C-alpha cells in the first residue's frame, strides 16, 4: 500500500534563520517543521535534528533528507526513515512539496491495520468453522442419501432377479414337460404350452431390454440422437409389438392424433416410452376394454396421453411411481408381473428430451399417463 492517504498536507513552516527556541514547542507538538525560504523548500526539521545538532538557528540544525513521492509504499518509506534515523520526510510531486509523511502516522496505521487483519482473521476463522460444520452436515446428509439410494438399488435388483427367475421357471417347466410328453400330447396342448413358453420368453426379453436401456441411461452411455419423427409410423410399429398381448385380453387400442406434423425426438427412446406406457395400460386393463393413445399439440410441445380403463392406481402409490426406492413387484389383471422399471425409463427419457411426465388415476376407473416432448423448430425447445 502506498503512503498517499497518510500524507500530512497541513504542515507547519519555519524560516532558515529563525531561532530554534521559537519552533521548539512546534516541534514537540507536530514532530516536524518544513523549512522554507521565500517559498523555496529548504528541508524538514525534526526534534531529533535539534538534539543531534544543538545550534541556535534552524538552518544550522537541518540535516539533509531525501524527499519521497506519494507512490512510495509504507514499507519503503519506513525503511528509508530507519536508514536516515529520521521520523519525518517531505513528500514531493513534480518538484513541489505537497506535504510531509510522519513515522508515527505510518506506525499507527500499521498497528490499526494489523488489528483489523487480526479481527478479519478471527471472523474468517469463525466463518470457516461454521462452513466446516455445514459441510460436515451436508456430507453426512449426502452419505445417508447415497446409502439410501444404494439400499434402494439393492432392493430393486433383488426384485429384478426374482422377476427374471419367474419366466425361466415357466420356460423350463413347460419345455421339460413338453420334452417328456411330446409324443403323448395332442397339437392343441402342445400349442398351449409353446404359447406359454413364448409369452414368458417375450416378457423376459422386454424386461432385459428395459434393464439394459436403464443401465446405459444411468451411466450416461446411451446415445441421444433427436430427429424428426412421424408419430403415425411409430404407432404402427408399437401396435404390431403389442398385438399378441392386446389380443389375449381382447382389448382395443385407439390411436388418435390431432397433431399432423413431425416431432423432434430420439426415435428409439420415444418407442421405449410408448411401448412401456401401452404395455402397462394392457397389463392393468380388464378384458374387453379400450385403451386410448392421444396426441395433442400446444404452442411448444406435443402432449401424448395413454389412457386405460383398468384397475387404477392407489393414490398413496402415485407419488412413488417414478421413485426407484419404492419399486416392488406389481401384478396385472391377468397376474402379469412387472417391476415398474419401465416407468423409471420413461421418466429418464422424457426428461432427456426436455419434457415432463405425469399421471392421473382413479382406483377402479383407470389411469392417464401423459408426457410432453418438444415440437420440431419450437422456439422454446430445450432439446
Amino acid at each position: 500500500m502506498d503512503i498517499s492517504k497518510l500524507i500530512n498536507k497541513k504542515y507547519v513552516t519555519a524560516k532558515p534563520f529563525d531561532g530554534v527556541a521559537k519552533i521548539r514547542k512546534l516541534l514537540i507538538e507536530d514532530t516536524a517543521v518544513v523549512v522554507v525560504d521565500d517559498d523555496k523548500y529548504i528541508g524538514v526539521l525534526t526534534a531529533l535534528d535539534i538534539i543531534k545538532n544543538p545550534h541556535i538557528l534552524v538552518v544550522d540544525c537541518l540535516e539533509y533528507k531525501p524527499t519521497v513521492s506519494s507512490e512510495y509504499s509504507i514499507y519503503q518509506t519506513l525503511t528509508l526513515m530507519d536508514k536516515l534515523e529520521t521520523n519525518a520526510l517531505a513528500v514531493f510531486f513534480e518538484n513541489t512539496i505537497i506535504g510531509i509523511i510522519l513515522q508515527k502516522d505510518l506506525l499507527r496505521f500499521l498497528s490499526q491495520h494489523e488489528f483489523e487483519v487480526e479481527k478479519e482473521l478471527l471472523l474468517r476463522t469463525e466463518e470457516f468453522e461454521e462452513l466446516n460444520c455445514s459441510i460436515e452436515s451436508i456430507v453426512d446428509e449426502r452419505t445417508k442419501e447415497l446409502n439410501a439410494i444404494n439400499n434402494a438399488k439393492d432392493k430393486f435388483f433383488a426384485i429384478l432377479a426374482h422377476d427374471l427367475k419367474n419366466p425361466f421357471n415357466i420356460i423350463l417347466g413347460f419345455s421339460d414337460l413338453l420334452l417328456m410328453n411330446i409324443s403323448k400330447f395332442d397339437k392343441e396342448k402342445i400349442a398351449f404350452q409353446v404359447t406359454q413358453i413364448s409369452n414368458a420368453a417375450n416378457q423376459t426379453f422386454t424386461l432385459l431390454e428395459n434393464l439394459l436401456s436403464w443401465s446405459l441411461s444411468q451411466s450416461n452411455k446411451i446415445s441421444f440422437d433427436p430427429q424428426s419423427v412421424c408419430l403415425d409410423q411409430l404407432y404402427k410399429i408399437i401396435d404390431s409389438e403389442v398385438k399378441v398381448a392386446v389380443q389375449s385380453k381382447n382389448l382395443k387400442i385407439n390411436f388418435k392424433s390431432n397433431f399432423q406434423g413431425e416431432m423432434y425426438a430420439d426415435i428409439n427412446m420415444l418407442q421405449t416410452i410408448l411401448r412401456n406406457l401401452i404395455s402397462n395400460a394392457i397389463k392393468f386393463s380388464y378384458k374387453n376394454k379400450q385403451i386410448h393413445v392421444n396426441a395433442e399439440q400446444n404452442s411448444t410441445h406435443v402432449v401424448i396421453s395413454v389412457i386405460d380403463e383398468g384397475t387404477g392406481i392407489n393414490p398413496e402409490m402415485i407419488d412413488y411411481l417414478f421413485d426407484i426406492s419404492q419399486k416392488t413387484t406389481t401384478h396385472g389383471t391377468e397376474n402379469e408381473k412387472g417391476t415398474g422399471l419401465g416407468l423409471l425409463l420413461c421418466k429418464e427419457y422424457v426428461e432427456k428430451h426436455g419434457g415432463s411426465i405425469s399421471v392421473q388415476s382413479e382406483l377402479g376407473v383407470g389411469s392417464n399417463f401423459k408426457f410432453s416432448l418438444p415440437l420440431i423448430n419450437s422456439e422454446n425447445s430445450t432439446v
Partner: protein
Amino acid sequence: METALKYSITLRFEEIKLPPFDEILVMGVNSPHGKHGISKSFELLIPNGFEIIDIKEKFVEAVFVSKRILVKLPPEKLLKILSDKVFPYVSEGELVRVDLKVCISYNSIEEDF
C-alpha cells in the same frame, strides 16, 4: 531613618570592530552558533569578505578566513599551521578568534631597471 541609595559605577569603553576579529575564526563542533548562521551574519557585515573552510577534526567543524589572508597564504599552508598550532586547543562548542599577521619580505631583489 531612611537608608540613602548609592550607586557605584565603573565605566570603561573602547572601540570595537564587527566582526570582532580580523583574520581567522575557528568554530568548534556543536557551537551554539552554527556554520550557516555565522556565515549569514558575516555576509551581512562584510559581504564577500570571508571564506568558509570545512574541517574534519574531532573538535573543529569549520574555519572562517579573511580572503585577504588567503591572497597571501595558500589555504593548505594556513590549515597546516592551524592544525599544528591551534586546533589541539579548541574545545567542543567553542569559537576561537585567531590573530594572524602575515609579513612578506624579500632578501634580495635583482631585476633590470
